[in-house]
């Protein structure tokens, strides 16, 4: 309470002294000024939580003082006090950002409430700033490791486009980190205080995707028991990330085009238009130009979404990133698994650098995770890496059937896991029942 400061600016001594006493009893630290010049000098000793400003003063009038005070402290909470109320001056003062305008004499209850509301509003504004800083801190996208010049260029493009509201298409092979790039764009944009809503357009059937994107009213279709907001509505104020945009059906392409042109849509089963202010970020591993040529992707939609394009290079084209990424994943999984693995042996490094990484960063992460599961020592060895065997067989990839490769891989993982089916199923990313079926099919023993 005692930290609150108030500045009273009034040319009448009796007003200054009585208000000074009144606010001192309220626990304020009070400063007074008899005119505009004195008020501006007092501002050097600021900031003040509240400034009570008389409108009619000799010399500089209240409105002029208010303008000067605003230049010194744009956040100042100013309450105009005047004995001569007029609508014009009240409107002018409020337009200039005064918190409120009261006529002398004021009821003590009204002044108490006014001051309390002003303090509450100021506290909320300050809290809002603090929370925004906190949100910025928390919404930092996962770091994108960029040692190679190619990835540094990608990050430069992210910074450039983040500040704008343009639609972005992120292109790149599967596993290169397109969603990570989308999240980085959102996290650096002015929309970061609103959500980034991600939808994988390729993995959802058309009818479901329609409901997913636009939402539906109760009873819009069989099973629609409740009204549901769609992803476009949820992305209001933020960003909508449509992954695998190259896979959406022609009908959905028309619907999307309409939404992108007007930023308005209707929920399924409703006639009411809803507006949504979102920024579209798309990703695809397909060649959109080729799809347009083949008339499998609408040209108008292509131009609408392809305002800014970012190409994320495959991992094999940026070998400088392989070892830093490996180290990053080792540290990540060492923390998660509580394992003392700290590094990679020189031989394992050579294997990692020699591999072509068709699955890109996702494959590298999976390889490191798997190696962390089976690895025993403080450094990952060649034998721990699933890519070692593939590298050896790289000369004859088409000579064997998929089933044969799967059989070998299952056998190897099971062996690496010491015959532990639960552990092996986890590494393979399948459930135990499926692994038992495969062991039975391939006549493998634990």
């Amino acid at each position, binding site marked *: *309470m*005692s930290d609150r400061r108030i500045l009273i600016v009034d040319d*009448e001594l*009796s*007003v200054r*002294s*009585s*208000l000074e*006493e*009144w606010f*001192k*009893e*309220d*626990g304020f630290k009070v400063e007074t000024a008899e005119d505009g010049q004195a008020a501006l000098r007092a501002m050097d000793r600021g900031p003040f939580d509240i400034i009570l400003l008389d409108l009619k003063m000799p010399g500089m009038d209240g409105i002029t003082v208010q303008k000067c005070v605003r230049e010194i402290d744009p956040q100042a909470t100013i309450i105009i*006090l005047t004995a001569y109320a007029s609508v014009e001056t009240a409107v002018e003062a409020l337009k200039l950002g005064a918190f409120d305008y009261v006529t*002398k*004499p*004021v*009821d*003590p*209850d009204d*002044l*108490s409430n006014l001051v309390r509301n002003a303090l509450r509003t100021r506290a909320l504004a300050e809290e809002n700033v603090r929370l925004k800083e906190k949100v910025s801190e928390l919404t930092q996208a996962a770091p994108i490791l960029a040692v190679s010049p190619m990835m540094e260029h990608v990050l430069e493009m992210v910074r450039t486009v983040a500040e704008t509201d343009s639609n972005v298409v992120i292109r790149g092979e599967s596993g290169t980190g397109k969603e990570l790039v989308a999240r980085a764009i959102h996290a650096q944009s002015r929309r970061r205080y609103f959500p980034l809503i991600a939808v994988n357009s390729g993995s959802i059937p058309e009818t479901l995707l329609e409901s997913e994107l636009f939402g539906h009213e109760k009873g819009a279709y069989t099973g629609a028991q409740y009204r549901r907001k769609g992803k476009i509505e949820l992305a209001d104020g933020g960003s909508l990330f449509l992954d695998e945009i190259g896979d959406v059906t022609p009908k959905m392409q028309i619907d999307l085009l309409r939404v992108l042109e007007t930023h308005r849509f209707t929920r399924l089963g409703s006639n009411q238009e809803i507006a949504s202010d979102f920024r579209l970020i798309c990703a695809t591993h397909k060649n959109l130009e080729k799809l347009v040529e083949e008339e499998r992707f609408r040209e108008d939609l292509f131009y609408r979404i392809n305002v800014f394009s970012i190409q994320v290079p495959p991992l094999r084209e940026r070998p400088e990133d392989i070892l830093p990424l490996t180290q990053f994943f080792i540290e990540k999984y060492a923390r998660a698994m509580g394992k003392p693995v700290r590094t990679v042996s020189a031989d394992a490094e050579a294997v990692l650098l020699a591999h072509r990484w068709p699955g890109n960063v996702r494959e590298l992460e999976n390889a490191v995770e798997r190696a962390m599961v089976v690895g025993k020592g403080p450094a990952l060895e060649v034998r721990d890496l699933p890519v070692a065997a593939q590298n050896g067989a790289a000369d004859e990839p088409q000579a064997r059937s998929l089933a044969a490769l799967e059989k070998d891989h299952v056998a190897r993982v099971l062996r690496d896991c010491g015959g532990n089916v639960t552990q092996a199923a986890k590494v393979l990313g399948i459930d135990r029942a499926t692994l038992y079926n495969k062991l039975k099919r391939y006549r493998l023993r634990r």
Partner: protein
Amino acid sequence: MAVPIHLAYVDGPTPTWADALVSGVADVFPNPIRTIAAPVDLGPCFVPSRQQHHATLVLAALLRHRPDSTSKIVGIVPVDLFIPVLTFVFGQAQLDGPGAVVSTYRLRSEFYGLPADEGVLVERAIKECIHELGHAFGLVHCDFYDCVMHASPTVDEVDVKGSEFCGHCASMLEGRGWE
């Protein structure tokens, strides 16, 4: 050492409820409390344009009747008090100073169109005297709703709050002549 407190009835005879007021204040302030006469002339404090008395001037006049330089004096006046800027005040004190003034004008039920009720008046007057004395002993307004130092710009809020200091305000009074 306990600071003596003087309750002075200004502008009129000592009311019938004077003993009840002393008793109520003494419940909270165990200091020596005396009722004294203070022949203050309120005429110069009256402001015809507002038909009210200027609280600051009344307080200044009252302080001239303080019996000694170490005591605190609270003047109780039947007239309506104001300070410039505000439409009225229930009372005014000098923060950490020698005196305070309390008006019973708006503490009376009749002011609000209700039948006279001396019990209610005394209860309100006790709270306001203790409140203003709290200021004179250096206390500022308290956020705790039940504390007598809670700000009460309306009579409803005077009725809602309690007549005693909260633990925090009581601890602040220690060593300030409140014994």
